[in-house]
């Protein structure tokens, strides 16, 4: 199970309800002259649906025919730190585990190959330590912190799709021995990363 904050697993706020409502209104293709009563009914349904799902939206909904539900429901976990290049790091004592976020895997598409470093290699904060291949593209994966690689996820060579299906757990990529504890301080927490993703998606 993902490590989730015990009292607030996810947040559902008015902004997310508005997004869900907008999505439902679009999908329902309301006719001209639909009443405020109809919209209020949908709003209430959307609110109860959102509460039941308990999902936090990491990106803003886009009202286009190609709208993807997965973009609205990207997961951001408490207890992790995040880089602007969409990697996460989980720091536990002298070990830091790194992978790419749900937002990143969703935007990349189906991962078909993962290139990882050898244990013993040193990586620098912001520098590339490997790559994933998806669709027709190779995409660099950058380390949020500096350190030495102590373990890589060998399951990814046979099952690269773990990055898509379980980006924060089974899809972890490397474990590092951090060399500079202060690296973590400049990374984003869950709230800031959620906002960052929303702003990034809104700008494009």
């Amino acid at each position, binding site marked *: 199970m993902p490590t989730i904050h015990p009292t607030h697993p996810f947040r559902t706020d008015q902004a997310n309800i508005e997004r869900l409502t907008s999505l439902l209104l679009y999908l329902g293709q309301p006719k001209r002259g639909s009443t405020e009563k109809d919209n209020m009914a949908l709003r209430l349904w959307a609110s109860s649906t959102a509460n039941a799902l308990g999902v936090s939206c990491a990106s803003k909904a886009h009202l286009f025919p190609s709208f993807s539900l997965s973009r609205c429901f990207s997961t951001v976990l408490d207890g992790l730190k995040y880089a602007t290049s969409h990697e996460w790091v989980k720091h536990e004592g002298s070990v830091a585990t790194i992978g790419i976020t749900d937002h990143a895997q969703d935007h990349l598409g189906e991962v078909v*190959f993962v*290139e990882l470093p050898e244990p013993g290699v040193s990586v620098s904060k912001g520098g590339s330590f490997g790559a994933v*291949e998806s669709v*027709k*593209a190779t*995409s660099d994966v950058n380390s949020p912190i500096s350190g030495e690689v102590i373990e890589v996820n060998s399951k990814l060579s046979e099952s690269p799709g773990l990055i898509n299906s379980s980006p924060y757990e089974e899809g972890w990529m490397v474990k590092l021995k951090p060399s500079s504890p202060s690296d973590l301080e400049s990374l984003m927490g869950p709230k800031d990363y959620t906002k960052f993703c929303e702003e*990034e998606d809104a*700008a494009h």
Partner: protein
Amino acid sequence: MLIHIKKQRGLIIFWLSMAISQARNIGLPLMNLVRLKGETILRQLQLEEQLLRTSSDNWFIINDGTNTPTIVMGMSGKPVELIELESVLRDRVPVIRRFSGGGTVIVDCGTIFVSFICNKDAVPGLQPYPHPIMSWSGLLYNEVFRGIGDFHLRENDYVFGNRKFGGNAQSITKNRWIHHTSFLWDYDARNMAYLKLPTRAPEYRLVTLLNFTPSEITGSQARGHAEFVCCMKDYLPRSAFIERTVKAVETHFSVRSMQLEAIGTFPDATFSHSTKLLTKQELEAFYSLQFDNSLSESL
């Protein structure tokens, strides 16, 4: 006197049109255009990888044909699955593993290469991920092929109708990306025979198999190379394609031509390329592995 006035007017018109052109280009990102002809695909890919990783400029590279037929695999390409190793070894066909993703092609003088290497903010509003970049390229080539054939971007390929003539690959770094294409101007069917049918084929390559007695769908099968691809030469002249592409790019960028020799840092001996020419020994090792796999399957 009249001739003098006409000459003056002509000069004014000339300078006005230059000023308008320059004013229009102000605000457009700069794009360096490098035109190559017959450059080896290995050297082209090494240039592109180096520019992607070490340059901060935008680059638009056209290589009009490559002299030696060469097989080019994507980053994760497995020779055993993708190429007919026995004939490749026999005929000494070079095999390259490139730095970008995507599938396997065999390129030769009938291939035209077009590559875009861009900073992530070069195209306003474009997110540096595979799908948005692919879509942007489709829009660009829509302009190129307007009025010519039934052009589409279809599942990451460029097609006329349902026949592929352009294959794409990308590589995305923290702040830059490359989108490069091999266009099939013409091809030699004998060269296609060096490639196996890929295990992962796009949906539109599949044809539905029907059993007519009784009528039912019995499955699907990938079209062979000859039924799947088409040649650009059947649609427009070679030079017209190149000039139409340049013109389309000029509507989005301020394009300036640059000679390869003017890129002073290429080749940079200190830069470590991941694009590699596979050695004969490596290919032979893959061939042995394939042979061993076949033997163990038959036992």
